[in-house]
Every structure is written in structure tokens, then in C-alpha cells.
């Protein structure tokens, strides 16, 4: 069981690019449909819990499912499995990238990629907009938070906690 947890989450870690919500369909397929470790309802609860706890969803669900199936050892191995592919790949890339960083063709490729990164992040903002701004107060929080980030040196962490506290008072 522990080995199955490790290999399944290794696969999930290997095939989910970009992270975040893009990983959910794959995790769902492996965990609910292929291995029957969770029912669909339990799976939705796990996604909910992953939302309210710190860290990436892939890590949270690996830890949760590993613990449910095989205790602490299961959670440790599932988490290791999901992290390992990125660790190995980035170490390989970093060792190459830091050597070729100044190559003009590498520079040219990255000059092309940077504006696309701006576009991808802007599109992430567009995607989360409908779930974030649901009424006038939430719209106001978003605008004020953006202006604070733009014109002051406020810590993003502090801003998150403050807006959560404000939420408890207002909603």
C-alpha cells in the first residue's frame, strides 16, 4: 500500500504542470476512479481542506490521502512522491540553466517568454475573478488591496490575514 501511494503520487507530481487547480482532474482520476482510495464526496472535502490550509493543493491532498490510507508513514511517502519529480527535474534544469544563462540564444528565448509569463499570470487573475468578487464589499477589498500593494510596501502576508479578519467582521 505504501509503495502504491508513493508511485501514484510520483505520477501525479510528474504530470501536473504549473501546479494549482490544473492538478485537480488528474488527482481525482488516480485517487477516486483508478484506486478507489476516496469517494467523490470525500475528494471534494479534501479540495476544500486544501483551500483552507497553507501550501499547494497537490501536497495537501497527498498528505491527507496518505495519512488516511496508511498513517504518518503513508502521508510522508505520498508527499515525498509528489515532490520528488519537480525536485529532480529542477535540479537538472538549474545545473544546466546557470551555465547557459548568458548564451545569446538562451537569452533570446527567455526574452520571448517573459511577456508571455505576464500574460499567463494576468489570465490566472481573470480565472479567479468570478469566485473572488461576489459583491460590493469583496470588490472594494480587491481594489484597496491592489492599491496598497502598488503604492506602499505592505507585506502580502499581513494583507491576507487582515482581509480575512475583515471578512469575519463584515460577512
Amino acid at each position, binding site marked *: 500500500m505504501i509503495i502504491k501511494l508513493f508511485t501514484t503520487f510520483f505520477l501525479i507530481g510528474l504530470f501536473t504542470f504549473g501546479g494549482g487547480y490544473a492538478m485537480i482532474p488528474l488527482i481525482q482520476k488516480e485517487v477516486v476512479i483508478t484506486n478507489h482510495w476516496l469517494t467523490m464526496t470525500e475528494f471534494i472535502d479534501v479540495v476544500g481542506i486544501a483551500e483552507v490550509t497553507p501550501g499547494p493543493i497537490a501536497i495537501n491532498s497527498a498528505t491527507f490521502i496518505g495519512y488516511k490510507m496508511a498513517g504518518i508513514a503513508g502521508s510522508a511517502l505520498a508527499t515525498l512522491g509528489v515532490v520528488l519529480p519537480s525536485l529532480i527535474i529542477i535540479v537538472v534544469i538549474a545545473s544546466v540553466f546557470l551555465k547557459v544563462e548568458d548564451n545569446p540564444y538562451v537569452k533570446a528565448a527567455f526574452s*520571448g517568454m517573459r511577456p508571455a509569463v505576464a500574460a499567463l499570470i494576468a489570465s490566472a487573475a481573470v480565472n479567479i475573478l468570478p469566485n473572488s468578487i461576489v459583491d460590493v464589499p469583496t470588490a472594494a477589498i480587491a481594489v484597496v488591496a491592489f492599491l496598497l500593494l502598488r503604492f506602499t510596501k505592505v507585506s502580502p502576508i499581513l494583507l491576507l490575514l487582515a482581509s480575512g479578519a475583515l471578512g469575519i467582521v463584515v460577512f
Partner: protein
Amino acid sequence: MLWSLFSTFFKIGATTFGGGHAMVPVIHREVVDTHGWLTNEEMIDMIAIAEVTPGPVAINTATFVGYKKAGLIGSIVATAGVVLPSFIAILIVVSFFLKIEDSPIVNAFFKGMRPTILALVAWAAYRIARVTLKEWMAYLICGGALLLVLGLKFHPIGVIALSAAVGLMHYGVRSALRPGDAQQGGNRVDN
């Protein structure tokens, strides 16, 4: 250095909810502004690398920065630091198994926090756009990428690969036309 890597990435892991692009400003602030471990350009390149490699952005960045500053050990220490907070948090949640998502107070907290996450993501996009959008080709790539990902639902990997190809042709040909530049490792290919 190892301790500084561990504690910084532990802090990043402990304070980023939901993951993904909302983490970018927190990582940016710690890694570029506070510690100077990466330049602005390297940070943006890192996001591009994270988009085309498997795994969450936070883990990829931790591994990359850790490797750059302290080799293989550094990458393991930084990655452990960023993973540990979620690991501990989930263990606590499952061992109590409170249905915290149904509590009205927790719901209100998250309703208040979500618009700020949106603002953080928008801010990350704004900051990167300000650094990168310097000439017409950059505007063209950015506009094209937006159209592909939002309008045509392209996968981010495809968008990054296409923009790299466009960059290679446009900026690469420009530096090949000035061969002296290319041979010397030409830093005239700017931004």
C-alpha cells in the same frame, strides 16, 4: 545560508494558501527584495521554467533558488522548508478532522481573503509587465499569449513554448546579425 534558505521557504510555505500564482508576490518579496537571491529577470525566468516543468511554482522556485545558492543540499533544504508547513497543517487537520470549511467564521475569513488573493495575482502580473513590456515585440507576445490562453484556452505549456520560439527567432536572429555579440556571449540582447 542553509538555515536562511530553510526558514525563508518555510515562511513562504506557511503563508501561501491555495498555491499557484497568489504565491508569486510573497516569493518575489522574499527572494528578490529581501534576500537578493535572484534578480527581477531571474525571478520571471523562474516562473517561466516552473510553467513548463511539473509541480507547483513554490516547489520549483525553492528547488531552483536552493540549488543556485548552495548546490544539491541547498535545493533539498529549501524544498523541505516549503513543503513542511502544509504537511504539518494537514496532519493537524486530519487528526482532529474538524469540518472547518462548514464553520461560518472560517467561511467569512476566506470570503474576505479571496479578493486579496485576486489583488496579489493581479499585482504579480502588473509587476512583471512593467519589467518586460519595453518594446513592440514584447507587447505583441504578451497580447498574443493573453488571446491564446483566455480566448482559445491554450495550455500554458504551449503558450510558453510558442513565445520561446518567437523570442528565439526575433531576438536570436537579431544577435546572429551581429556575430561579434553572439560570440562574446552578447549582452546586447537586452531585457
